[in-house]
């Protein structure tokens, strides 16, 4: 995202996303290793399995905090537009794919694919809006 890279709100957002991304990588690796090599009771398994997802949630929180902290109204509006496009695209794709899955016309995908798709759509929306001069 090239929006106001020098502005304090964007610097804070970038820092939070970097920390959450590193945490996600470490937690995912750790959870995969732990659950593969250790026999743990179900409550512990659930707790370990939750951790990588919580790191992704932290990225969503960082986005929300950016919208609150960004004082430039145009940059804020542009990010909101990006997020709306991402949400619309993700919901549409997930809905269509859901029916393909139900009728066994496509392989089942893990639910966290929705988050991956949303981030992908966010990037595409940003690029398209930039090209359109929005």
């Amino acid at each position, binding site marked *: 995202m090239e929006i*106001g890279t020098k502005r304090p709100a964007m610097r804070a957002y970038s820092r939070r996303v970097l920390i959450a991304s590193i945490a996600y990588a470490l937690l995912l690796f750790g959870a995969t290793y732990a659950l593969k090599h250790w026999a743990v009771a179900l409550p512990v398994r659930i707790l370990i399995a939750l951790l990588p997802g919580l790191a992704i949630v932290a990225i969503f929180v960082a986005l929300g905090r950016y919208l609150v902290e960004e*004082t430039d109204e145009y940059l804020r509006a542009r990010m909101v537009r990006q997020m709306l496009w991402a949400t619309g695209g993700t919901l549409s794709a997930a809905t269509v794919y859901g029916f393909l899955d139900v009728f066994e016309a496509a392989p089942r995908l893990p639910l966290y694919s929705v988050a991956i798709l949303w981030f992908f759509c966010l990037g595409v929306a940003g690029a398209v809006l930039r090209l359109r001069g929005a």
Partner: protein
Amino acid sequence: MNNRLKVLRAERDWSQADLAERLDVSRQSVNAIETGRYDPSLPLAFRIARLFDLPIEAIFTTD
């Protein structure tokens, strides 16, 4: 809406970055307002008017 932001900026020999700094907004915001891609909110319009010491109607006009 139309605006005379570019003209007023040029009269003072300010770049978009200069104007952005004075308004505490991004250069992208100034560019978007000047090119008509974005209409500023009322508080920002008042800040612009105050900066140029002009009434809002002297800077922004309806289509």
